[in-house]
């Protein structure tokens, strides 16, 4: 079933994106600089690092327990720091309609402070999505990351996991380290952008915040994807980017139990292409999964592309074991069998 919903007044919804620790801070700074319509907050135990960041709000947490020197690799210290500064944090997040928690897991602040914030957000009944990156295998910190995930699974509505190891397999060997990390940042930014695009940008046919709320409240892992067709002939490629997103760990589009799709365009999008986009995406989702879409019929003056497609899906509640099992599934250099061989060759 595909349902279209008429526009509501969305602009009053407050989306707050919180970057926790060094990695989370770096990503949230990029979101801040890109001018996405959300409030950004960066939290860190390292006062020097935070002074180099830019966001709407910068908070050094745990000034007493870490004396501004960072949490090292100790998640307990990160946890204590967040607990010490919880009032400052709550002041900034308490009126959020949707909180997006971004952190690199494995080190002290990200792994220790994020569960504390997730817990308080749950207590305050704030809809919260966690977007986390997992450390490289060689860092030997996966256990710390999994412990944090297991704890946050209790509090978060939906989690998106991006494994640095998968990213490093996907970029070419010639790519610079910077390119690889930029890709991670881009994936996280796409997740945030998908949400904002879906709930904050008014359209003629729209999905509303309650749709997002009901989708995200299903829990489990999140599938977020974005595809851009600069020209009409790029539509297929854009759809492929949406339906085959190997950058997210433990989830494919066929795991999704429900989805929201937003299509933006410069106004040239034809009805045929619009139907094609919906039909092709629909074809990849499980048959019973409900989808809702949003579209601005007249076109969006802020959009240069022929079509921009955003999709958010969730898998529904899973146990922590299932989530971690999905994530830890041995990365055996399998080909990405989910992608049709012809498409895979074309992508190469």
């Amino acid at each position, binding site marked *: 079933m595909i349902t279209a919903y008429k526009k509501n007044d969305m602009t009053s919804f407050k989306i707050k994106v919180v970057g926790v620790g060094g990695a989370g801070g770096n990503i949230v700074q990029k979101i801040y600089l890109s001018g996405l319509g959300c409030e950004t907050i960066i939290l860190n135990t390292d006062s020097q690092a935070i002074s180099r960041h830019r966001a709407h709000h910068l908070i050094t947490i745990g000034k007493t327990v870490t004396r501004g020197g960072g949490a090292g690799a100790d998640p307990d210290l990160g946890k204590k720091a967040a607990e010490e500064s919880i009032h400052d944090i709550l002041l900034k997040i308490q009126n959020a309609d949707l909180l997006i928690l971004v952190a690199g897991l494995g080190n002290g602040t990200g792994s220790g402070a994020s569960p504390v914030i997730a817990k308080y957000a749950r207590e305050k009944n704030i809809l919260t999505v966690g977007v986390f990156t997992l450390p490289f295998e060689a860092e030997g910190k996966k256990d710390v990351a999994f412990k944090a995930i297991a704890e946050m699974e209790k509090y978060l509505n939906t989690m998106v996991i991006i494994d640095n190891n998968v990213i490093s397999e996907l970029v070419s060997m010639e790519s610079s380290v910077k390119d690889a990390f930029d890709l991670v940042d881009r994936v996280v930014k796409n997740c945030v952008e998908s949400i904002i695009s879906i709930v904050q940008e008014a359209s003629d046919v729209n999905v509303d915040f309650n749709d997002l709320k009901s989708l995200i409240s299903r829990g489990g892992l999140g599938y977020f994807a974005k595809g851009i067709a600069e020209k009409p002939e790029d539509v297929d490629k854009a759809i492929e980017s949406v339906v085959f997103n190997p950058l997210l760990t433990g989830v494919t589009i066929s795991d999704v139990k429900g989805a929201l799709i937003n299509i933006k365009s410069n106004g040239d999008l034809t009805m045929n292409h619009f139907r094609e986009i919906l039909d*092709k995406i629909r*074809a*990849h989702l499980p*048959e019973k999964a409900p989808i809702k879409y949003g579209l601005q019929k007249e076109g969006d003056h802020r959009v240069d592309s022929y079509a921009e497609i955003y999709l958010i899906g969730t898998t529904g509640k899973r146990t922590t074991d299932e989530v971690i099992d999905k994530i830890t599934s*041995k990365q*055996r250099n*399998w080909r990405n069998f989910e992608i*049709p061989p*012809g*498409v895979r060759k074309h992508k190469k």
Partner: protein
Amino acid sequence: MAETFMVVDFCSSKVVTFIAEVSNELAVKHWDLEPVDSDTIRQGQVYNLENVANKVRKSIEEFAKKSKFEPAHVFIGFSDPEIEFITSIGMAACGTPENPSEITEKHIEQAIKNSHTIKIEEGRSIAQAIPVRFNVDSKTDIKNPKGMLGVRLEVQSALITAKKSSLLNYKKALEKAGIIAESLIYQIIAELYELTTKEERENGILFIDIGRDLTNYGVMSEDQLLFAETVPVGGININKDLRHYFHITLDKAEELKKFYSRKDYTDDEEREFLNSISSPGKPLQIRGELVVQYITDRLTDIFEYIKERLHQNDLKDKITFVKITGGTSEIEYIDKIAEKVFNITSEVYKPDEKLEKVFSNNELLLTNRLSSSLAVLLFAHRKLTSNKELSETKIMGNVKGIFKKLFSS
């Protein structure tokens, strides 16, 4: 009634149960085939314990209406893309150079047990161990060393390791149905031993089972097990490809695959078929050769992946023949695709006379969709009845007297 054994085979889209007698001639007393959806079992792994337990419980309760049921042995057939195939050497001292002694079953058991003492990644355990070959002092490649004189016995074992959590889920699902099982059989190992001829195993065979969402394959040469692996891809991926290219539902894609799996069809049949799957007023515009191309592309991709893996494991020159089975092998031109990729003779396996006799030509069972289940049944039976040969299950020491407590719920 003779002692009975039970086999519960976990396939991608069904749970197959057999209850048979432990007698020289395989006599199956009961069988059941319960379809399961992908929320219950996915890629060989149990996702819903309760559903699986209900299916198994239903099956044994039906049998229990006919006969008192207390299986002495319960085997689980399984596959899992997380499986790893490793080889390990174990040794046992049998005597001294001055006084070599006769090798007994105890020595063999000891050597095999020692081959299990290998460091395995955390969170994994040995699901199955198969002694591949023995060396006695300087004599190598011995099939059964029992009774030989020697000082030092060495065994090379093939160890199948899997995630502990996955293995426990199989057992837990059966426990919920009131059955306690401790013996696991990796499906492709059973297929290699049971669905091939001695000659094929000697000359070098690659056996491939393409199921719904998993492909199992394994290699034997010189009658020795060399490699086995499970890949997370199968017939469902063909359906997904067709869905992607033709924007149709998975059910329609399945019908499309089925029709174009045939080598021969008339234009009229094709027209009639396309009409039958078209929505009213919206005829499907599909070119048959394109469907065949997409099916061929996916199968080629699977075979090329296997070929690459054989190459990586130095096995490419060990095989002279390919045998294919599983539901996807019903695609009539699959052997030709395999021949093109592997460049050796390829053939589709069909249940043979032996099985026809056991199941009285029952067409529901005698299909290559059920090859793995039939193979697991045969493998379990052979292990229980072959006293002369080395009994792997006995060596593993975890089968005897384990099970009971049925119908607890």
